[in-house]
């Protein structure tokens, strides 16, 4: 599904995650009988449904959750899958869009903040590979950070892809002409997309300005236990 980079208007593509693997992020937050289960992971929507049930069973067994979790987990995952599938048949426009992806995560004791640019047109992109490399480069020893990063990236990409779909739908509804539709992907960008032309024009250089360096640097923090507890308490309070 590689499209030539020169054309700014491309034929509408079928909705999919703009990554090499069409995996979707799933987030679970279930409370049964006072037990709260929060989790997030990546799921392959083409796995058969039996896979889903097996996964739920194993999770409940491994984490020794109450059996009441099982149907809820299955249901939650299925509904998220259904949402994805409902978008799947539709078209989306992807212009020349380079979006900034922001990471601001706390995983156990590690806090990571980062910002980088991601090419939406690159359908060979791999958030998992990126997350693995990032963790390795930063020397993050907690193995749970990697999946969290990959998931955060996927979620943001998913959101942007959904926005593309809705924008494509609006285009069709408006029934604007072809030429007008050209400008839409660019101008109707969610505001976070950057204009390639402006950025990489011959007048400005490709090298980032110095004052922006700090924005695009990954920041890694290790928290002590007390900080972790304090943050958790705060989040729970805000969540309620």
């Amino acid at each position: 599904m590689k499209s030539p980079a020169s054309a700014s208007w491309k034929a509408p593509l079928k909705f999919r995650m703009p990554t090499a693997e069409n995996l979707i992020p799933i987030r679970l937050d279930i409370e049964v009988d006072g037990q709260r289960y929060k989790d997030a992971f990546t799921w392959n929507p083409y796995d058969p449904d039996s896979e889903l049930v097996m996964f739920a069973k194993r999770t409940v067994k491994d984490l020794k959750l109450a059996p009441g979790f099982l149907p809820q987990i299955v249901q939650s995952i299925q509904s998220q899958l259904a949402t994805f599938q409902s978008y799947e048949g539709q078209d989306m426009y992807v212009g020349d869009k380079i979006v900034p992806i922001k990471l601001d995560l706390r995983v156990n004791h590690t806090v990571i903040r980062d910002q980088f640019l991601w090419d939406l047109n690159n359908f060979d992109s791999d958030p998992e590979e990126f997350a693995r490399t990032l963790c390795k480069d930063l020397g993050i020893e907690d193995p749970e950070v990697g999946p969290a990063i990959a998931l955060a990236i996927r979620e943001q990409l998913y959101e942007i892809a959904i926005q593309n779909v809705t924008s494509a739908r609006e285009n069709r509804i408006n029934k604007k002409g072809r030429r007008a539709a050209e400008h839409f992907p660019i101008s109707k960008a969610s505001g976070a997309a950057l204009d390639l032309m402006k950025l990489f024009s011959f007048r400005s250089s490709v090298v980032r300005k110095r004052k922006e360096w700090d924005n695009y640097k990954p920041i890694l923090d290790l928290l002590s236990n007390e900080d972790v507890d304090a943050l958790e308490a705060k989040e729970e309070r805000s969540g309620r």
Partner: protein
Amino acid sequence: MAEKSPVKEAASSESVPISNSVQLKPSPQFSAKFTTPTPPNSDVPSTPTNRPPPVDADVIHVPSYSRWFSWDKIDSCESRFLPEFFDGRSPSKGPSLYMYYRNSIIKLFRENPSRKITFTDARRNLVGDVGSIRRVFDFLDHWGLINYSASSALSKPSKDTASNIKSSDSPSLESPSTAAPTPKQSSTSRRFCGACKSLCTIACFVCDKYDSTLCARCYVRGNFRVGLSNADFRRVEISDEANADWSEKETLLLLEATMHYGDDWKKVAQHVGGRTEKDCVAHFVKLPFGEEYLGHPLLDDAESGFETNKRVRLTPLSDASNPIMAQAAFLSALAGVEIAEAAAQAAVNILSKVDDTTASRGDNGSLERNSRQEISSNGDTNQNASERAYADANSQLNKEEEDIGRAITEITEVQMKEIQDKILRFEEMDLLVEKERQQLESMKNLLFIDQLNLSFRRN
């Protein structure tokens, strides 16, 4: 966009018992250097790196049928079982990704080998979609590369040392025969479902594209690999096969049982499980090694005495009060004739090589006798090996004899040469002495002439 750690499952008031090792991190970490995320109260992890492990956690048990495993290589059975990584369908899901999953899961398990890791632990720590991680995890679990602790692995009762050794090897007989033939679709062994690992009894469904077998239940539930559909499977009836074939596992159980119980076929049938006494007896009678020892057609009515004969012959050295030889005989009987022959031949070769360096004929002879004994206990088809060895020893003996003969002749030659030299010298001396005598005689003659002259002149 502050996100709470997606892994946290802390409940409000009730604590969820979480087996996740990451939750137990009591020690505060102020420095930037992170210690590895294993709980400090666990055993010292016996990682393959150079951390000094305690003595008991030093050894990681891996079943012998998983011997192919190596950190850097991908074996063919892995690509067979997990084709999604190897068929190039998706560009990022390649062998390197598979190796990353596999090695991470195994490392995670080996950090604390006394504890079984759950799939949830594994998938939490790996970047990727949980479906593929689950498949890799299941594969490793099935092949015993993770969560394999000695207590849970051996499902057969192991009663004495011989069968202990055998039973640690027995998974090697049964598991490859179940795991390997199911992809290879051999017609003899029992069919095990590729998905739920249960025995296929009535009918099974075979997919030719990926060489996988599913039991009826899995097929109906759609519990097959991603990418297959119902149409790819064809139905294979095995209701008749199940009872007819004896799997290797059952044969092994039968042999063990016969060793323990001898004639008590009721106990043997119990031990084998799933076969009636008559079946056990009939199958035992049909076992191949029996004929080698007997050499005459098997009779059904002479069973009991016959079976004791067979039992004795099964362990021909069992009364040699040498448990090692008994085990060797038992092993070789069960391993098969060709394997035993090859093993014995190799052993003899190496032993003879070792003895060449010591270069002692007596040792050779006795060794040859021992090895001949060992070989002959394994049946007539090993005759060639013993004959060959015998011929080798003979030729070596002959060679030594020749050497000695040659040495003796040389010695005699040297001595004769010495004598000849002496004779020569004596002859020379003789000549010299003869010459002196002649000179003396001539002088005597001269003297006599002088005397005559003198006396003549006086007168």
